């Protein structure tokens, strides 16, 4: 009922009836090809510099980045990071195959369980789908292997990111998402939840002064795997 009323007022205010078929076809065409607006020049860089821009942007927003040559070094790097920060060694690890395949047993001091995060979890490890150099932003689409609670309930969030998954602009990350999850049906590539995360949680509500760790993680630590030796075609 209300639906018809709202639509009718919109059309009356715009001084027209329902759109003619050719206009509708034009709008459907625009949705189908989803044209890009302007992409700022700041991220149009050769690969190494694009990755460096990503790292700089994360650090500007109070995140930390550790660059590693290969996946085998990840458990050791995480154990050392936790020791440096004086953090507990109990981890909740996202059930992503890339995380499960890591040689965790080489670091027996790390006690891990896999799954979603609960309010009692202190440190979590999550796999990143992609990242955007423009603003140092991680793209974390929800999936059975990438539960959303891992981005939210833990105090320290550790992210595994492959350098080859860093793109320049948001638009390029959307293209990766479209390509990965497209199932042929319109508009169904979109997961239930896509979080774009830039640095740890914060608030400036108390006297306009920035404090980290408002409701989400206080620390965001990115373990970056240098798997991007060969320059990719995308710039």
């Amino acid at each position, binding site marked *: 009922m209300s*639906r018809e009323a*709202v*639509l009718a*007022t*919109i059309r009356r*205010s715009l*001084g027209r009836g329902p759109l003619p078929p050719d*206009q*509708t076809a034009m*709008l459907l065409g*625009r*949705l189908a090809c*989803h*044209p*890009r*607006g*302007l992409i*700022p*020049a*700041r991220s149009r860089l050769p690969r190494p510099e694009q990755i460096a821009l990503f790292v700089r*942007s994360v650090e500007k*927003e109070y995140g930390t980045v550790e660059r590693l040559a290969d996946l085998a070094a990840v458990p050791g790097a995480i154990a050392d990071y936790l020791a440096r920060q004086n953090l507990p060694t109990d981890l909740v690890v996202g*059930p992503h195959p890339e995380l499960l395949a890591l040689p965790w047993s080489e670091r027996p001091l790390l006690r891990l369980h896999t799954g*979603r995060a609960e*309010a009692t979890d202190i440190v979590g490890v999550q796999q990143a789908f992609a990242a955007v150099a*423009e*603003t140092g*932003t991680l793209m974390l689409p*929800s*999936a059975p292997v990438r*539960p*959303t*609670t891992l981005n*939210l309930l833990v105090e320290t969030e550790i992210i595994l990111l492959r350098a080859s998954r860093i793109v320049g*602009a*948001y*638009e390029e990350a*959307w293209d990766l998402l479209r390509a990965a999850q497209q199932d042929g049906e*319109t*508009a*169904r590539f*979109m*997961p*239930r*939840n*896509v*979080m*774009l995360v830039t640095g740890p*949680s*914060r*608030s*400036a*509500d*108390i*006297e306009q*002064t920035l404090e980290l*760790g*408002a*409701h*989400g993680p206080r620390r965001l630590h990115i373990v970056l795997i240098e798997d991007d030796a060969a320059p990719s075609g995308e710039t």
Partner: protein
Amino acid sequence: MLPNSPAFKKNASAALADAGLQRALERTKPHFQHRRAAAVAALPEFEELREIGREIKDHTLENLDFYLETWAENVAKAGGEVHWCATAADAREAVLGICRGVGAKVVTKGKSMISEEIGINDFLEANGITPVETDLGEYIIQLGHEPPSHIIAPAFHLNREDWEARFRAAHRDLPADRVFHERHDILTEARDELRQRFLAADVGITGANFLIAETGSSVIVTNEGNGDLTQTLPKVHIVLASIEKMLPTLEDASVLLRLLARSATGQDFSVYTTFSTGPRRPGDLDGPEQYHVVLLDNGRSAMLGTEFQDMLRCIRCSACMNHCPVFGVVGGHAYGWVYPGPMGAVLTPALIGVDKAGHLPNASTFCGRCESVCPMKIPLPGMMRHWREREFERHLGPPFVRRNLALWAWLARRPGIYRLATRAAALALGLAGRRHGRFRRLPLAGGWTAGRDLPAPEGETFFSRYRRQGRSGR
């Protein structure tokens, strides 16, 4: 929230006399202005993006019926439900219906201006459901039973002592002798308190910065992560969104997101920008089981096709109020309803009626700074002028103002008498103010001179000077 906008003059006087508020304003104003300026300077394409952003929004508004229908179809395909609501009352009923459907007792809330606009908190409370604000700023003002004073910094008017006092009064189960050394202690206490609420809530209500037609998504932008916890942990997620939040595609959203955080807090990007599309999918380990969007019109569709259509481009960044000299001295509460500052002065009369809010467009110096910083290039001063005209036409102004405007109009239409009168006035004021060059006090203009001096004229009118210099060829 019941509008108190007609009392703007009284509210403003009270605000000027409020030392705590003035301290907060002093602190906040430069903070927002400097940070925005720095962020904009660091992005050379900012101006071009404003232009593109405006085109995207104009295109969407011209085809709003199509995009709303397409979006609603895609929400349904993703397993969500859209509740179309023409009025605030419809929206309140829709929210209550969903809450009752799951027997909800506690509802957590992310920050939403629509929630203030429809007054959902009082309504839920009256119906036995406890709403808990989870944005830190919203939480502290909820504890003080007051409305937000700013659209993105709702508690900017409070100082540290206010936070402490309210926390001590509200969190009675905590040791009374605990100390708040740092701001961080306040933050930690709020985090712990609210964590329990997040876990106990049956329903989570968030706003929406954007709706995406292409995917049927709603988008929230936060720095705390409270909106995400609100929508992830409970069984039910309700999105409160108004119709003009619509955008066609993810690419269009990307353009506006580049403008939003820079204009608002001066960040390049907010910490959490989250796109939600329907409820939990098969195999998901978390996320809500139900996803509802309560879609509110509440007078917006009637603004289309009028001189106020441009206002529907607003992305609620708050740049206009952060740069407004009037907001900068009276704060947000003086405006008497949900939306303060220049955007509120234009939007409030459209939503609640020019009779209830007609004074707000007068709260302007017409300096034009709001329009120059507005990322969506909304001609705010021009629209305030339209409202003033409507107010005058409908005889809604105070008799004193109307009488004097009428006198001025009579004078202005009679150039000879006008020049004579202004020459006499300039001469008299020029003579009287010769000594100091300015007036600290003037009869009949006490209100004006209370806050500033009036420079004394040099004894000559513009017209006579023009004639003199025009003759001498300069």
